[in-house]
């Protein structure tokens, strides 16, 4: 199962080379490859009015840029995703989270595309976030990290692309929060993109979306180990709170039918109910495991910051209250995909995006795919999704 992508670059070592925009992209360029890290001076101006300097990036690239890097595809990850889109995760050892979509012979193919995936701003896998050392104090930012937005994540990605010598993207592709970034790309850098793929996403966070996130944040902040965010020095993070946050969120990624099919009311390694509060049911055991294992690879404060950024996301509001206005300046083609059992970002949210794109007379494709797996469907095996993305990226004009 575990499979590493063929790559022309060395997979190790930190990259300290300064930006070299005019330098010809060579396959052995130290900027490219797996497990890259770079610190750029910025400053990065944020929607909150604050500015961040320097800005750190943990990222990976696959494939080789062509002469003008016009084969570049940026992949934007979801809330708890990371840059390890198609290579083994350094903490969990699991294969890349989207190796079904990205890899040799896949719709996004390192043999043809120069693929970039960076840990988002605010996260905890090498990019600037609350766990990063604040140069002003020498201690982690914790809750002194500025509140960020999806648009700030996109601005940071643009900084990284400048560093990588990519002026224009063949495509920006994302699911869930990655789709929000892809939409924000179209609005923020309309001339830098040729195509946009938005999967299982939305142009604005709904009250229900915000509500679920608030449950997660409150779970973290109610954990006494959270300590107002200053838990880094004690090396004793609020794992219990973060695990509960993940458990609640995980339910929203599945569907009732999917949970019933997978677990039903089956008991966990026992013959009968115990008349206690142990994990009697398989679904409880599964959720507890999902929650606990998540705390090994994710920072609780990063969870607070990124969910906040998602809650603040309302692309129409950023453009005078009319979503169509967000898309007027771009000539990019759009492909919007939803899943019929996704109740977190239901098809109606995708339709709202499509209607706005139609109102702005943009080239848009939209399909609702059928899957029993709810929101998570975009990460799972889906020949239809692969066919749509491959067709859209390959044959578009």
């Amino acid at each position, binding site marked *: 199962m575990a499979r590493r992508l063929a790559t022309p670059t060395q997979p190790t070592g930190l990259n300290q080379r300064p930006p070299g925009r005019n330098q010809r992209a060579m396959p052995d360029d130290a900027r490219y490859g797996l497990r890259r890290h770079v610190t750029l001076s910025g400053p990065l101006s944020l929607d909150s009015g604050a500015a961040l300097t320097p800005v750190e990036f943990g990222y990976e690239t696959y494939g080789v840029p062509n002469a003008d890097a016009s084969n570049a595809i940026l992949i934007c990850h979801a809330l708890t995703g990371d840059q390890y889109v198609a290579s083994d995760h350094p903490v969990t050892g699991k294969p890349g989270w989207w190796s079904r979509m990205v890899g040799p012979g896949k719709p996004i193919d390192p043999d043809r595309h120069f693929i970039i995936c960076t840990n988002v701003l605010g996260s905890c896998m090498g990019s600037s976030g609350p766990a990063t050392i604040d140069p002003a104090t020498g201690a982690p930012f914790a809750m002194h990290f500025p509140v960020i937005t999806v648009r700030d994540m996109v601005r940071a990605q643009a900084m990284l692309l400048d560093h990588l010598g990519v002026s224009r993207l063949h495509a920006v592709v994302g699911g869930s929060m990655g789709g929000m970034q892809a939409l924000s790309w179209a609005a923020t850098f309309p001339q830098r993109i040729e195509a946009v793929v938005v999967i299982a996403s939305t142009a604005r966070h709904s009250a229900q979306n915000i509500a679920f996130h608030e449950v997660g944040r409150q779970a973290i902040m109610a954990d006494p180990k959270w300590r107002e965010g200053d838990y880094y020095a004690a090396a004793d993070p609020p794992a219990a709170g973060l695990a509960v946050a993940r458990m609640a969120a995980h339910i929203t990624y599945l569907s009732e039918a999917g949970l019933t099919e997978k677990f039903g009311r089956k008991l966990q390694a026992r013959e009968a109910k115990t008349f206690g509060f142990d994990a009697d049911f398989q679904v409880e055991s599964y959720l507890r495991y999902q929650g606990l294992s998540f705390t090994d690879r994710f920072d609780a404060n990063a969870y607070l910051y990124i969910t906040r950024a998602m809650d603040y996301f309302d692309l129409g509001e950023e453009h005078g209250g009319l979503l169509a206005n967000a898309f007027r300046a771009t000539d990019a*083609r759009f*492909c919007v995909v939803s899943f019929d059992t996704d109740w977190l970002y239901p098809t109606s949210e995708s*339709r709202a995006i*499509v*209607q706005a794109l*139609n*109102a702005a*007379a943009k*080239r*848009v*494709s*939209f*399909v*609702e*795919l*059928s899957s029993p797996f709810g929101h998570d469907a975009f990460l799972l095996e889906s020949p*239809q999704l692969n*066919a*749509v993305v*491959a*067709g*859209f990226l*390959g*044959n*578009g*004009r």
Partner: protein
Amino acid sequence: MIDLRPDLAIIARNVAPDSRVLDIGCGDGALMAALRDRHGVDARGLEIDPANVSAAVARGLSVVQGDADTDLAGYPDQAFDYAILSRTLQTTRRPDRVLDHLLRIGRQAFVSFPNFAHWRVRASLLFGGRMPVNRLLPERWYDTPNIHHVTIDDFRAMVAERGIAIDAEWFLSGDKRARPAGANIFAEHAVFLLHR
């Protein structure tokens, strides 16, 4: 080059090059691809069946999954030179409203439909007493998507009532062109070019 269905071939021949087209009920995008490749047309599509949408997107076409009855309202006025509705009118819940949308979205509209007054249909009903199942209308009464059967004369009457002008009309019997005279009996399909 793939041969287009005869009604689509008529439409393809009569769309002005380099125009903007919305193909409603575009299927797998055969007409859109032909318009794009042979006539430089900027074509967009609307299609209800997800497998067809996927096939069309895989051809590099811009196709939105949606329903002509509910999803045309989001398209702006006069955004296209032509709106095309081929063999779809009779499947909509409200053909009259769909037609109004066509002529709002497009400056002109192509509409094609099977003629329910063709002599074979008449004969089937008159002599057999059964709803026709034939080459033209292959589905049975209970599983047909054609919920609003229409004749050429019905269609003419509807557009006249709604103040819609007929710019051109074509009739087909099998794959061959049929004469306008007696079309309501002898034509299996009709294609109209309309404007308001």
